[in-house]
């Protein structure tokens, strides 16, 4: 007898009985899931920082530097939200008013200088997917806010006809906003092809990671800033389901700006890809230095300075000025870029001595006064950079060793000592 339709109750009973034969180990599985989840989150964060595993290890270390001539112990947790504890001086709970700090954009993937810049994160992502990864017609998910000034955008998997493929994702891009409002792709991460570490020189690249082992191959590439291939290697992952470890070394024709790993299995992993900038190893402590944005307001940028002299390092970076690709300016006179101020700390107060040559003509001469607007910006850049260190309660600026000269130089205010507000 032929059944037109299968009996639903019979099917229900069969399915429950058949599935009931499966008895998973729930205790072990929860532990495994937690471990894998934490590892995956750590990987994602590592990639978000645009730095390799080795850099992370270095950055995780607590630095114990000495500040200035007074040899006071300073414990600094690295990172944009740097906190400073100076003992035995009582600490203050007041905070320096800041705008949302920009992310560290020193290492990024796309777009390169000279290329169109993007005021829309999706357009930056699309440009990256087409011009850098060479996807002909990428499908992108909606941007998801991840952090202030940072969004994640999925590059969706497509079948051979360009249609969405099972809701899968080829890669997730991290797209960050710079101080001038434009967006840059910082990294691309896939769960199926993972760059875990690499070393890159002008002649060779060694890349290690994991890739999906579905009988597939991966293509590891080193690219210059414009997305041109400097060298590549086909990586074969033998056997087994799930990501398998690999390491490959290949020759390159120049120092790469970034590394790209693309799956070429043609199966469900499609063209999953990951990419990281070839960031120089970040040494030292992240500090904020304040420049003037296109809207005329003072905004922070990230610099890494070498401990122990982190305040001096921050001031030196401030005097060095913004980089061209930051699209910011400084109110400090042009000559500041060739000078280095000297900071000392005593009793929770900093004294910053600025070379007299910054003021031209000599501030003892009539007319050697900064315009009002410029003076206000100079003072704001200086005080914000100093007061990012929570334990500094006041700062005195000197010009050529003279507090009065600094006051004269900044004209209308006549002040040289500033307290944390």
């Amino acid at each position, binding site marked *: 007898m032929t059944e037109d339709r299968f009996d639903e109750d019979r099917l229900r009973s069969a399915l429950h009985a058949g*599935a009931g034969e499966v008895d998973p180990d729930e205790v072990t599985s929860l532990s495994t899931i937690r471990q894998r989840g934490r590892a995956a989150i750590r990987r994602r964060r590592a990639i978000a920082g645009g730095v390799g595993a080795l850099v992370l290890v270095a950055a995780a270390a607590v630095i114990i530097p000495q500040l200035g001539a007074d040899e006071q112990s300073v414990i600094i947790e690295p990172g944009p939200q740097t906190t400073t504890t100076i003992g035995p001086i009582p600490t203050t709970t007041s905070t320096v008013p800041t705008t949302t700090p920009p992310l560290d954009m020193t290492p990024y993937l796309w777009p390169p200088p000279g290329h169109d810049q993007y005021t829309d994160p999706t357009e930056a992502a699309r440009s990256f997917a087409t011009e850098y990864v060479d996807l002909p017609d990428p499908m992108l998910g909606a941007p998801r806010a991840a952090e202030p000034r940072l969004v994640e955008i999925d590059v969706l998997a497509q079948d051979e006809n360009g249609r969405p493929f099972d809701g899968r994702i080829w890669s997730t891009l991290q797209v960050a906003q710079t101080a001038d409002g434009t967006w840059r792709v910082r990294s691309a991460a896939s769960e199926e092809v993972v760059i875990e570490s690499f070393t890159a020189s002008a002649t060779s690249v060694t890349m290690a990671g994991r890739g999906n082992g579905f009988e597939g191959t991966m293509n590891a590439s080193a690219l210059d800033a414009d997305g041109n291939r400097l060298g590549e290697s086909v990586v074969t992952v033998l056997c087994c389901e799930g990501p398998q470890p690999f390491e490959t070394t290949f020759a390159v024709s120049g120092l790469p700006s970034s590394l790209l790993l693309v799956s070429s299995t043609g199966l469900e992993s499609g063209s999953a890809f990951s990419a990281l900038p070839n960031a120089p190893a970040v040494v030292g402590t992240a500090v904020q230095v304040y420049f003037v944005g296109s809207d005329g307001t003072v905004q922070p940028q990230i610099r890494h300075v070498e401990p122990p002299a982190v305040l001096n390092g921050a001031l030196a970076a401030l005097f060095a000025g913004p980089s061209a690709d930051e699209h910011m300016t400084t109110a400090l006179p042009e000559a500041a870029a060739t000078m280095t101020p000297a900071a000392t700390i005593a009793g929770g107060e900093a004294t910053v001595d600025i070379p007299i040559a910054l003021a031209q003509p000599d501030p003892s001469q009539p007319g050697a006064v900064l315009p009002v607007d410029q003076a206000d910006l100079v003072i704001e850049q200086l005080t914000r950079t100093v007061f990012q260190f929570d334990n500094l309660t006041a700062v005195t600026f000197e010009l050529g060793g003279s507090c009065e000269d600094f006051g004269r130089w900044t004209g209308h205010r006549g002040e040289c000592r500033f307290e944390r507000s």
Partner: protein
Amino acid sequence: MAATMAIGGSAEVVDDVLGRLHRENFRSLVRLAYLLSGDQSRAEEIVQDAFVRLQLRWGGLRNPEAAPAYLRRAVVNEARSHLRHRQVVDRHDARRTVEPASRSPEDEALAEADRRRIVEAMRQLPDRQREALALRFYLDLSEADTAAAMKVAAGSVKTHVHRGLATLARLLDEERSR
């Protein structure tokens, strides 16, 4: 399957919610993955993968109550991918292995052998039909929840279920007549 959760917050809160989700869903999801993939050893991995993905997307879930639905959808997707992969591998290796169906009499409908035949026949169904039947008749999901797990329109579920039941009947009938 319903769980009252607070998504987001500290690692401890996330751990706690994850534990509750796991307790309430893991076993049934592994069994669903088994029915969909036919691979007992892979079923547990499929569900673990879904939970790991959930942790990665924790902040992206707009509605905390959506977590079980997200897990179901992830399991369906992953099982489907696994099947496709296995089919390609089978073709590549030219050694597809389908266990011979049991020849037990039909009147032993709910006997061990018959259950195996039905579960085995399920695996021969097209993906969508198999998914619709497993979600509707194993997890007892509504048509709307089944549609969400399969990422299809609600109206399509009815079609897939109808066709699935008919195909299942035909497959078992063909087997009996061999």
